[in-house]
Structures are given as structure tokens and as C-alpha cells.
């Protein structure tokens, strides 16, 4: 049964991918890309990757689509027909694909418990992490503790990306934008939308907090919680307009949150050093190593959540505050 679901989902994915490459309307392509992500999230659940599915559903289906639509508003909505048939591209792609498929002959069969990937570090994570780190969710243990240094790097990449987007698009015209904007959001006239949004936003925020703090015990964590928090704010902006959203959450606070999250993460690492441990070795944080690990994971997950939330919202604000091109 599981195999059947797997095969059906993969076939759907292949069809969606072909449709994406075929359509010329960029709006359709973006919607199809969102559907692609949603199918992917379902596939990840069948492959036991619940944390990944969670992230893909929140990021790929929600935020990525919104950001692309934001860019689409500022550019063109239709792709032009290329001047010549891309036969060469097709040849390159087919050759690369054939070589890769030839390479899969050496891969172990799908789901094989004796595959090399399951022999090296994974058994230790599964058998020891509850004694060494504590949380029942192995993914959280590995993400926040065993490979905490990697995650710090990734949080920094997200922060840098946020800085780059703001540097490229800027909030230069923001004050002007607020002064000129007398007309309220178009969506504000839709009573149903407004009321549904009003009902949903607190629930989404509450759910984000649950995901943030329950990440040790179930699927979830700082990355997912940050994105879900951001999506609540994006929903607010979409229904009530950017001017209102900027009053609720001025960019200055978002800058502080984005930088503060990275600082909290790095600061936790240095605190461990000051207390006589290694960098990001949370056992030094308390007299009981497990309590120290718990505290460390809580702090760095909070840092990740803050940075991801602030960067996602900043990116969305940067795209939506940019003036539309004169047509």
C-alpha cells in the first residue's frame, strides 16, 4: 500500500514538473510549483520524514509562492516564446539524465536497511541520542546539538539572504510609500476574507508557538515555527494592506529580531565556552548535562525561529513595498 502511494505521488510529481516546463503564463507556473511542493510534502510523509514534510509544506507551498508572486507583480506575467527550438538543451539534459540513471545501478534498493547510509553515524543518533541529548525527536537532537555548528551556519546564510534582499530592494521609498498611500488595501473590502483572516491569525500564531516549543517531542522546531509565524503576518498584510502591517511591525523591530536571533544562537555557543565547555557544547550550561542540553536547544531554537521569522517577513515587505513599474 505504501509503495502504491509512493508510486502514484511520484507520477503526479513528474506530470506537474512537465506542466511547469510547458506553461507560458508565469502565474500558472508559480501555482503549479506550489502544487509540486505540496505533493512533495505528502511524499516526504510517506517516507517518514515528518519534519521535512512540515518545512516543505510551510515554505515551498506558502512562502516561496508568495515571494514569487511578489516578484511577478514587479515584472512581467508572461514568458516570451524562445526564438529557436532548444534542441541542444534537450540533448544535454537527456545525456546527463542517462548518465545519472546509469549511476543509480550502484545504489542500494529503496528502503534497504543494510544500505551504507544506515551503517555509519545514524545508529548512534538513534540508540544514544536520548541518553546523550535528551529529546525524543532524533531530528531535533541532530539538528540542534550534534550538528549545531552546521545549523548556526545555515541560520547565518538565511540572515545574509535577508540582508541581501533588503539591500537590493530596500525600504528607501517606505516613508514615501506610507505618505502617498491613502487608499486602503483592495482586500479590505472583502468582508468574508477579512473575518476569516481575523479568525485564523491568532490560531496560526498559537500553532507556531506550539511548533516552536514542542519541536523536541514531535515534528517541528525553530525553522518551521519561524515560517508559520511569518505566514500569519503575511496573511495579515494581504488582507489589511502593507501600511497597517508596517504599523504593527515596523522594519526596525524586524532588523533587531533577525540580528538578535543569530546573536542569541552564537551567544549560546560562547556562553558554553565561558562556562568551560566547547563551542555549542550545551552540557556546560548546567550542572546536569541533560538539563544543559535542554536549555541549549531551547535557546538556539528560539534564535533560529526569530531569525527565520524576521527574514521571511522582511523579504515579503521588501517585495511588496517596491513601486510597481509604470506600464
Amino acid at each position: 500500500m505504501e509503495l502504491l502511494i509512493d508510486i502514484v505521488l511520484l507520477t503526479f510529481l513528474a506530470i506537474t514538473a512537465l506542466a511547469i516546463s510547458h506553461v507560458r503564463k508565469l502565474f500558472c507556473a508559480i501555482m503549479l510549483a506550489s502544487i509540486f511542493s505540496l505533493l512533495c510534502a505528502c511524499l516526504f510523509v510517506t517516507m517518514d520524514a515528518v519534519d521535512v514534510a512540515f518545512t516543505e509544506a510551510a515554505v515551498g507551498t506558502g512562502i516561496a509562492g508568495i515571494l514569487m508572486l511578489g516578484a511577478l507583480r514587479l515584472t512581467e506575467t508572461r514568458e516570451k516564446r524562445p526564438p529557436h527550438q532548444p534542441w541542444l538543451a534537450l540533448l544535454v539534459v537527456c545525456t546527463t539524465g542517462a548518465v545519472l540513471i546509469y549511476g543509480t545501478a550502484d545504489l542500494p534498493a529503496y528502503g534497504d536497511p543494510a544500505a551504507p547510509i544506515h551503517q555509519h553515524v545514524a545508529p548512534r543518533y538513534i540508540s544514544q541520542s536520548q541518553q546523550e541529548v535528551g529529546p525524543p525527536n532524533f531530528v531535533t537532537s541532530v539538528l540542534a546539538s550534534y550538528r549545531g555548528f552546521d545549523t548556526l551556519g545555515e541560520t547565518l546564510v538565511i540572515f545574509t539572504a535577508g540582508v541581501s534582499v533588503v539591500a537590493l530592494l530596500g525600504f528607501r521609498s517606505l516613508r514615501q510609500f506610507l505618505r502617498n498611500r491613502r487608499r486602503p488595501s483592495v482586500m479590505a473590502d472583502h468582508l468574508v476574507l477579512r473575518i476569516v483572516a481575523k479568525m485564523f491569525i491568532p490560531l496560526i500564531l498559537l500553532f507556531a508557538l506550539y511548533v516552536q516549543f514542542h519541536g523536541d517531542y514531535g515534528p517541528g522546531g525553530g525553522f518551521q515555527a519561524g515560517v508559520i509565524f511569518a505566514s500569519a503576518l503575511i496573511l495579515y498584510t494581504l488582507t489589511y494592506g502593507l501600511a497597517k502591517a508596517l504599523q504593527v511591525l515596523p522594519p526596525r523591530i524586524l532588523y533587531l529580531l533577525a540580528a538578535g536571533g543569530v546573536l542569541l544562537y552564537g551567544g549560546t555557543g560562547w556562553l558554553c565556552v565561558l562556562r568551560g565547555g566547547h563551542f555549542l557544547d550545551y552540557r556546560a550550561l548546567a550542572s546536569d548535562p541533560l538539563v544543559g542540553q535542554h536549555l541549549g536547544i531551547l535557546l538556539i531554537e528560539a534564535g533560529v525561529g526569530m531569525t527565520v521569522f524576521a527574514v521571511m517577513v522582511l523579504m515579503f515587505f521588501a517585495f511588496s513595498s517596491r513601486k510597481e513599474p509604470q506600464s
Partner: protein
Amino acid sequence: MTLAGHYNYWVAIFLMMTGFYVVISRGNLIKKLIGLNLFTTSVFILYISLGKVTGGTAPIAAPGVTLYSNPLPHVLILTAIVVGVATTAVGLALVVRIHESYGTIEEDEIRLRDESL
């Protein structure tokens, strides 16, 4: 090598190649970024497929369960997804700026305007 044993890998490679094709054959910069996203997502599928153990369950400790799927690929991909969307946003911001200076996001038109300078 069996169909059921390698179907996941083959479809992941097919999706990867579709994304690759969109990146190299289309001139529209937003379409290229969508293709790039397609490519990265299929790499994620390949990684997660490698981490699956038949009969295993999600890597969250539960009483009475002994067989779990491999948590390591999950960690790598979870962070990669969020990093991926952040870098896509940088790409989109560049596209918006290109559109503001050139008035188009088609690659060949941009090249024409560059040559005519």
C-alpha cells in the same frame, strides 16, 4: 536492480532533469528560478529516499518501536529547504532590479540591450 527498488531514484532524476531543462532552455529569468527550485526539490526527494528504511517509522522515539528511518538526511534537507527559499528570494530581488534597469526579464533581450550600448 528492480523497478520498485529504484523507481524513486529514477523519478527524482527525471524531475531534476526537467528542472535543469527549464533552467538552460528558457530565457525568462523567473521561469529559470522556478526551474532551479524544481531541481533543488528533486535533490531533496533523492536524499530523503536514501534515508528511508522499509518497515521503519518516523525518527521520533516511541515505546515499542525499534526500527526508525535515518534522521541524518532529514536534518540536512530541513535546513536546506529554508536556505533554498532565502536564496531564491535573493534571486528574485535581482530579477526585479534587472527589470527596473532593462525593462525586460528575457535573457536574449537583455543581451541585445547590453550589446547596443
